[in-house]
């Protein structure tokens, strides 16, 4: 994962959590990159670190019609948890990262790059964008999640 000017970083103990600049985010730790009317999605560094080493993925189906935040379009399994991801948009899935079938660890190794999950063609892009937050806002949210987790551990 490239560091430096492209990322915001928060250090907690020995972990360096990153948020990639220029993307949009949901409060459920999904990032999206919007380009030419299409939206690529993936999970954030924070989520992949918290959930652990990915052992299995259930990829979405290309061509599926999906509704924003209503159903699971993707899930992955680690030894700690099963993580479900809902779509940030209404729309159709146009591409799926099939590399994840053989190399699910890409989600851990490069969550903002080669660990991308799917590309969506949103049917109400401008409307659904209202529910997204900027990288700066997500960075603040992530920091508060990290702080909450640390307080819970210390109780």
């Amino acid at each position, binding site marked *: 994962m490239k560091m430096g000017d492209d990322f915001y970083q928060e250090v907690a103990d020995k972990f360096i959590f990153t948020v990639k600049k220029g993307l949009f985010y949901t409060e459920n730790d999904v990032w999206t990159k919007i380009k030419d009317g299409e939206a690529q999605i993936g999970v954030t560094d924070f989520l992949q670190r918290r959930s652990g*080493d990915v052992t299995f993925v259930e990829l979405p189906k290309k061509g599926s019609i999906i509704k924003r935040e209503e159903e699971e379009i993707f899930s992955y399994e680690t*030894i700690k948890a099963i993580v479900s991801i809902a779509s940030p948009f209404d729309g159709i899935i146009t591409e799926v990262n099939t590399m994840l079938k053989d190399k699910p660890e890409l989600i*851990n190794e490069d969550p903002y790059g080669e660990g991308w999950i799917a590309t969506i063609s949103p049917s109400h892009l401008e409307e659904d964008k209202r529910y997204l937050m900027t990288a700066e806002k997500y960075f603040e949210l992530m920091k508060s999640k990290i702080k909450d987790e640390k307080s819970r551990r210390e109780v």
Partner: protein
Amino acid sequence: MPDPFLIVPCSGIGKPFGTISREATYCVVEDLKKGETDTICLSLLVMEDEDAKLLVKSHRCIAVDGCPNECAKKSLEQSDAKLVANFRVIDILRENRNLKPKDVTFLDEDGRKIARILADKIALKADELQHSGAVS
């Protein structure tokens, strides 16, 4: 006695994978391929211990890593070891979805099962390499 293989586990302390890699190594070295295999402390290579470096250069090494970080494999490569095979615990987990090892300090039942499956694979690989006369 044929030239022994060195089985080198990552022994990572943060996840069950490291403990499993260790147990699988012991299973091979002490049970399945006793007398035909041995192990070495990975940290001696990091310390650039001369004896350790000589050993891994002169013996066929099999890296047993826990996760995709592949610490054992990378450390062996950095020491110019004669690396002939590598295994990852996470790959065995992927082949055995029903097993979910959780404990790190002492292996639970699923952890021991995964370790045994991995040990069998390592032993089989050692046999294949021995019979094929691979680089020694």
